[in-house]
């Protein structure tokens, strides 16, 4: 009798369990994600609720690197370079607003969703729009800047004269001239042409030619950012660009600059009038697009793999302080002084 009762009990429990499990899943249709709240609910959500939800998501996804206090000193941070963003200082590098200004919500969401390629920040593309909203709301609680500063306007998006033409050769050629001749990206990023060419481009953009250049013009110029961390500017044929390499992403970064770093805002400075009146301007806002196409072309040249001996042997040691040992004095600049010539693949 005892045995029979137990059997019945087991069967009932099993059936109940199976029914519960199936019931939970049977409604899911491919495009309706039952595991996430519906996005339209956001209209009725207060900021407090969003912040609360954001905190949950922050603890689930972010806290390891960015820290519970949002100071970028999470447990994992010691291994990471570049260091995780310190939200209490609110220096957000990647934004559609001018350098030094706070980013828009869309900027923050883009960085979370796509990640910052080449840094330890992975893309959280599976998070729902609502979770991203919550995270943004929560991140804003770490710094008083968000309350004290006005919302900054995004940079203007000038018309892209090259977009309709599938052949980007013209844009790339123009971009090379502006990159080296006017914006002088090679002050920090590598120069991708000879010094003679640079001088030619400088003159073409209305500047004087130069006699001296920094020693490792093929390498990068390492500079500390506003928080004192060393920043290695991107070598476009070697490193990933963080904030996306689609053309709009590149335009945004070049135009708006990177808050906290030596990369300034260029969108307001793209005007050089012609030497003789009436001629076409030497530099104009649409050249930002040309530079974006040029940089994108450089990125496309990045070899998927490096051929032995055909790349610069760089040294970028970074201290890991697990034992609590203080880091030695930061390495001197001119990291890549001894770098061998970059030989193009193929």
């Amino acid at each position, binding site marked *: 009798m005892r045995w029979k009762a137990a059997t019945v009990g087991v069967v009932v429990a099993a059936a109940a369990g199976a029914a519960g499990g199936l019931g939970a899943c049977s409604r*899911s*249709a*491919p*495009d309706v994600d039952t595991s996430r709240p519906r996005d339209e609910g956001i209209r009725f959500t207060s900021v407090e609720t969003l912040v609360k939800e954001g905190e949950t998501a922050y*603890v*689930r*996804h972010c*806290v*390891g*690197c960015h820290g519970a206090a949002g100071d970028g000193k*999470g*447990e*994992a*941070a*010691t*291994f*990471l*370079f570049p260091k995780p963003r310190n939200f209490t200082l609110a220096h957000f590098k990647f934004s559609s607003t001018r350098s030094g200004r706070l980013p828009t919500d869309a900027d923050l969401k883009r960085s979370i969703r*796509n990640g910052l*390629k*080449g*840094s*330890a920040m*992975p*893309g959280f*593309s*599976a998070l729902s729009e609502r979770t991203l909203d919550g995270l943004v709301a929560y991140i804003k609680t770490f710094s008083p800047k968000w309350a004290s500063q006005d919302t900054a306007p995004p940079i203007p998006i000038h018309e892209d004269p090259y977009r309709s033409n599938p052949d980007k050769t013209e844009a790339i050629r123009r971009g090379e001239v502006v990159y080296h001749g006017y914006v002088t990206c090679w002050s920090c990023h590598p120069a991708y042409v000879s010094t003679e060419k640079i001088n030619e481009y400088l003159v073409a953009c209305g500047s004087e030619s130069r006699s001296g250049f920094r020693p490792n013009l093929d390498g990068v110029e390492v500079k500390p950012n506003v928080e004192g961390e060393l920043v290695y500017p991107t070598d476009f044929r*070697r490193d*990933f660009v963080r904030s*996306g*390499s*689609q053309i709009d992403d590149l335009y945004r970064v070049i135009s708006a600059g990177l808050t906290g770093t030596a990369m300034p805002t260029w969108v307001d400075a793209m005007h050089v009038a012609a030497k003789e009146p009436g001629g076409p301007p030497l530099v104009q806002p649409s050249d930002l697009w040309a530079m974006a196409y040029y940089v*994108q*072309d450089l*990125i*496309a040249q990045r*070899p*998927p*793999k*490096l*051929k*032995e001996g055909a*790349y610069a*042997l*760089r*040294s*970028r*040691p*970074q201290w*890991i*302080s*697990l*034992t609590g*040992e203080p880091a030695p004095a930061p390495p001197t600049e001119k990291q890549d002084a001894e770098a061998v010539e970059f030989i193009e693949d193929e």
Partner: protein
Amino acid sequence: MFETKSGVFAIAGLGFFVLAFLVMGLLPWLIYVDQPELTVEQIAEQGLLHEFVELHERFPAEFERYFGGPPSKENFAAALRRGHEVYVGEACWHCHSQQVRPVSRESERWGPVSHASEYQNELQRPVLFGTRRVGPDLSREGARRTNDWHLAHFYNPTSVVPTTVMPVYTWFFDERGYPNRDGMSIITYVQWLGSWLPEYPYYYGEGPPQLTPPTRGAQDGVAQGPGRDDDGREG
């Protein structure tokens, strides 16, 4: 025959087994036998991973001590081989698959659907399809995350992903927290996964537009068989 020693021994024991082996084992073997199988040296010949070189950038002294010099084809091959040994020995393949299926929208999550030719190399012997996905699929993991991320994650996975159930692998590190030879090797191996794809390192089109449309490698073109289209949208 059905109850005799010879019948049971020869027909059921030997005969049916051999029949099954011929159909289910030898046949796929013969189908793929003319596919070239790359050795690790041939893989290294195709070029070094950026991430492997980057390990040298970050830990030059340690790297040269463990691998006997700056990055080269030889020590890249050595790192891949050792990384594969660690991957197998630590049973990584019991919680991580290396196979993207054409169903359940897996290609949206992980990247391109797996292809027979991808497994034709020494590091897939025996093949590491995987059996369980406690953690994500790894076959398109190369260059998706940085070495830094992997360092922190191997040292203490919950420090990076608070909800993870991945164990710690502190023995991949020296006492200062720098990766040792096994640590550098397993990172090299993981960063290598997927690096043979034309999409690598941009699996989702987040990269630059391809100036030339992606072409599959010469060794590709193995028949995928029927029913391999992505039908994950039916439920």
